[in-house]
């Protein structure tokens, strides 16, 4: 069971995400036509917000892993860094892509280069892409781990900036839907579907990261076996 833990959590996450999508399109109440230019497109928010939530978890994992490697030389920290970067890339792309679809429908443009949240979140995703592609291009070693961990630590500065961006510099991106005061309140049914989405994406991200950490661990074991064989 422990061996299949990651796969089980991942599967539960997928089922939950599928269910959230189904409920979002078929069950969730419509929003007021006065509040949005394109009210039906707003349903994408049941995908977009949980994906962004999961991305923040992944980036947090990436930061903790980077710090553990950088300051403690922990192999577990490096595995967390790798897993956080991969999961951050996956969920970051999901968030950016869904946001662009909604932006096209609601604003008439998919992207606004002057909006702080859009850009800082996009940059976090680019950072995750850099960490994933960059790591794959390098042999594993202390130089590789040090360099990418530094970028992981540096990139995390963007997480609080992104989080507070809609509170401090709200230009185009909508304000926070949870904890954002009266204007951001949700009705019960909406909140429930959103909660299911958040739980499902969390399960997905946890399963994904556990699996990724296991793969990195196996890669490290394979490399040490190869090194031992080189010496024979």
């Amino acid at each position, binding site marked *: 069971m422990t061996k299949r833990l990651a796969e089980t959590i991942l599967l539960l996450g997928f089922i939950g995400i599928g269910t959230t999508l189904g409920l979002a399109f078929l069950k969730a109440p419509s929003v007021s036509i006065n509040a949005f230019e394109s009210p039906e497109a707003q349903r994408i928010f049941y995908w977009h917000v949980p994906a962004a939530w999961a991305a923040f978890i992944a980036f947090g994992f990436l930061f903790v892993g980077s710090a553990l490697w950088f300051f403690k030389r922990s192999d577990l920290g490096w595995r967390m860094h790798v897993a956080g970067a991969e999961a951050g890339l996956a969920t970051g792309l999901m968030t950016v892509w869904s946001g662009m679809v909604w932006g096209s429908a609601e604003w008439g443009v998919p992207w606004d280069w*002057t909006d702080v949240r859009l*850009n800082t979140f996009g940059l976090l995703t680019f950072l995750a892409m*850099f960490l994933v592609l960059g790591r794959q291009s*390098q042999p594993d070693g202390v130089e590789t781990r040090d360099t990418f961990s530094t970028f992981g630590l540096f990139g995390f500065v963007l997480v609080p900036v992104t989080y507070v961006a809609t509170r401090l510099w709200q230009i185009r991106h909508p304000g926070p839907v949870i904890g954002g005061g009266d204007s951001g309140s949700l009705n019960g049914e909406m909140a429930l579907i959103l909660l299911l989405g958040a739980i499902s994406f969390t399960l997905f991200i946890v399963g994904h990261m556990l699996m990724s950490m296991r793969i990195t661990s196996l890669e490290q074991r394979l490399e040490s076996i190869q*090194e031992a064989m080189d010496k024979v």
Partner: protein
Amino acid sequence: MSEALLSFNGVSIRRGSSLVFKDLNFELMRGQIVLLNDKNGAGKSTMLEAAAGLLPLEKGEIFHHGELILDASGRSKRSSTAFGLTLQSDGCVGSQRLEEHILNALDLAGGRIDINPWLERYNLTHRRHDLIAHLSGGQRRKVAMLAGILPGFVGDKPRILLLDEPAAGLDESSRSLLVEDLLELKQRGNALLLASHHTDFSNCATHVFNGLELVPNDAKAEMSGTQRDIKATTHRTNPSFRTGVLLNQRTLSTLASNGIAGFLTLGILLALVDASAIDSSIIQASGLFLSAAFAAGLVGDNMVPMLHEHRALEWWKAHRQGIPHSYIHALVLGSALTALTQLGFDEQVSWPLVAIGGLLTTTTMAIVRTIDLATSRLARPRAAFTRILTPVLILPFALLVQWVTDSNLL
């Protein structure tokens, strides 16, 4: 009374996934030549590069002349007495002239001496104005070796000289001359750490370090003749800045890479954007006028890839006196592109905007260069996809354009 010029204090160094040195304690005294001649992969280059402050330490500290220059927490400091360095790769750029590299090494050491006797001695006089790229492998090695040993002849203060395979590719007579030079450097009180498998050096080394302990060596070679009286003259300051300007003028690299990106952007804008749109406020004119300068900066500093040749970047980094850059050229290029864009759209040239364009190219280039340098320690720095991070610059660019528009600079 001998003094330790170089000290390793409980140093552990990891390279790749293996720990090359663990709790290494080592002292290199004034007037010593310590030979590292262990088998391949034993860590000779690692020890030399760590002594030059090029490798991060897992544990311990490294001292030059009693001053801490590097510790495990990453603190590093430039030694007050510059050292000589010959890396296993030559550490020089192909687009530099032979004498320029040697004079740079002397300027970094803080004093110039007449290099003619050495050029003559090693049969390089006829090549002194040649580009390093035009030299044979052996000649290039002589240049790298001279850049490592000549600082030891500057002034009276003894120096640390770190020489990694200085005789690789040198013929027998050149190796004999080098042994003579090393003996004189020892006589002058310099401390030499030398990695080589050539038996010539076993005859002049005072000690051999086998990775664990320093073993006294029965050196047979003696210095023939008397110590030369070498007068040091004033050195020229800022060798890294001078090298950046020289390399740029010689290769036109900023124009050829950043310039092309800027001119292409300008061409595309001229082809696609109707000039009447500028006056109608459909688009932000300042953004249009600054786009070419921004695109030119996004290419980064071409000096960084140029310095990857023969690990010249590490050679410059080790001396901690700056790394050649292209900022002056970026400033001129950015200003010119901004002025040209305005002229291209039949607008009057706004000089404040021209200045902003120049600064924009320079700043953008500096940020991309910093990202490039941050990944230079990787085994394959050019394969690291650093350009994925350049979108970080778009938001500041958009905010700058907004500020210029709001300030009515046009």
